[in-house]
């Protein structure tokens, strides 16, 4: 087992690769035989009707799936060549490299500053580092101009859109390589959602960004590649333009033209 740990990923390995991934619940299969290569420094969208397994897929990518007992994961998810389901790999480290932002803003009942500093505090970071990283993260999440002058205010008093961007800043602060977004704007009003959407192109300069969304136009706007999932299977994975304009599969065609889902 640990012999593989010394092995080091090839330099050209894509940052996150899914190989023959299946997820089974006791009574049914949620995902079957998915293989995707997620490009680095780019935005990838995952679309599909509800219940297609897209949330399950994104939760396997940083082992958040571990928190749902009774699910069996087969196949591999490689982070820079290393299987994150390897027994020697700890999920805590996986989640430090692969950050996640959820559907609803999940700010903690702490100050703005302490929310962003949360991950750093766990790692016992130096106070000066913490301050610097918090500032930088808030700037990158586009919040610094709005709330940078009052970092001590309770985070729960921010607006919904600000809360969601605070969650993004919080994920950025632990300096991951990959950012996962599970329906990041579905609980926000259109204007707040737009502000979050605008961040994605910015973030894609430094991270691999993966977004699950049921909002087709959002995928079309922000993702450069899009995967379409249906009933636990990967139907099509192609550059977004191609997928929306010249889908190869009939199912994709039907879904994007709104015939089901």
């Amino acid at each position: 087992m640990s012999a593989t740990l010394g092995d080091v990923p090839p330099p050209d390995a894509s940052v996150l690769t899914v190989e023959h991934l299946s997820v089974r619940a006791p009574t049914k299969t949620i995902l079957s035989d998915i293989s995707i290569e997620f490009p680095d420094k780019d935005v990838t969208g995952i679309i599909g009707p509800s219940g297609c397994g897209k949330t399950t897929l994104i939760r396997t990518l940083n082992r958040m799936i571990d928190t749902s007992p009774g699910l069996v994961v087969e196949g591999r998810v490689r982070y820079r060549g290393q299987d994150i389901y390897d027994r020697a790999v700890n999920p805590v480290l996986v989640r430090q490299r692969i950050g996640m932002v959820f559907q609803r803003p999940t700010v903690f009942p702490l100050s703005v500053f302490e929310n962003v500093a949360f991950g750093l505090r766990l790692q016992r970071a130096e106070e000066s580092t913490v301050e610097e990283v918090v500032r930088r993260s808030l700037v990158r999440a586009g919040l610094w101009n709005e709330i940078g002058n009052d970092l001590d205010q309770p985070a729960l008093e921010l607006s919904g859109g600000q809360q969601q961007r605070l969650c993004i800043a919080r994920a950025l602060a632990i300096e991951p390589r990959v950012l996962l977004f599970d329906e990041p704007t579905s609980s926000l009003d259109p204007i707040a959602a737009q502000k979050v959407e605008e961040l994605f192109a910015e973030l894609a300069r430094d991270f691999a960004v993966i977004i699950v969304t049921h909002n087709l136009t959002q995928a079309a706007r922000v993702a450069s590649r899009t995967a379409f999932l249906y009933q636990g299977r990967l139907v099509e994975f192609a550059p977004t333009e191609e997928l929306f304009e010249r889908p190869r599969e009939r199912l994709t065609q039907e879904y994007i033209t709104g015939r089901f889902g």
Partner: protein
Amino acid sequence: MGSAGVQPLPEPAGGEPAVPPSSSASDRSGPSLWAWVGSPLALIPLVLVAAVATVLVVASGLHNFGGTFWGILYNFVPGDPGGSSWGIGAYVVGTALTAGLALLLATALSLALSISIVVYLPTVASRILAILTNLLAGIPSVVYGIWGFVILAPFFGLTLEPSMRDAIGWLPGFGGPASAIGSWGILLAVFLLTIMIIPLTTALMREALRSVPHDLVEAGLALGATRWEVARRVRMRSARLGIWSAILLGFGRAVGESVAVAMVIGAVPRLPESLYSPSTSLASFIFYQLDSAFYYPDLLKFLVEVALVLLLISLAANVLAQRLTRTEIATATTVGAAGGLETQ
């Protein structure tokens, strides 16, 4: 409160209905028998609380209150049964010591227990332990009392207290002389009170920790926190009002417990010299003294005043607890039935 509303929990534990009953539906149905009969009945608890206070005020005649209230508080030794100078200082000290120490222990243990149940233990184990904890809650206080008086007291007097004196006797309160009348005293009462309130505080804290939105827990894990770090920094933080409310309700329960304490505390209205001394408490005092008071009208009035003080303390703790958590509080009363509520 702020975080409680973020997510519709699969099992709302609160007293507020998930959907407030709208009055529009009744327009069509017209007035119902249940509404006619129910509206006065629902106010019975309110009427009763007011009636209890009124009856006690009337019965006491308030002969010691007014200008001399603080006087009687500082008068530590009760006067002669026929006289006018009663003091409840010793009872207040005894109550504060027993209830306070028991609350301290119960809080620590309940936090450990509720975190174990919510975070660490597998469901089956938590369920069995919840059932056993509920059982402990249902055992009559006289049973605790006779167990403490007959079984535990010799162990406390002959083994536990001497070794505590040897080990930590230098701590204030832990080094005093043994009880003169046997092994009954503060320490034994603290022990009984602790295990008597643990089921209540544990169930409340468990509900508070459990009702932290799952989103927040996941967010903590996604930031690379361990289970313990999530428990301490996310769950306990989000549930802090619920935890404080549990502590307050536990305090109310501990202060109000009369019978079990009366059986083991030694019933001596003096200021205690150490934790091993016999003492007394407000609730136990008014319990074991009532039959003698039948013959002494003045003593009876004094006892009623003490009952009034006790009522005020418990109501204050209860009101404060209810202010802290608007919705979760319903479980405070139904907590014994928590074995039922939790598994829904």
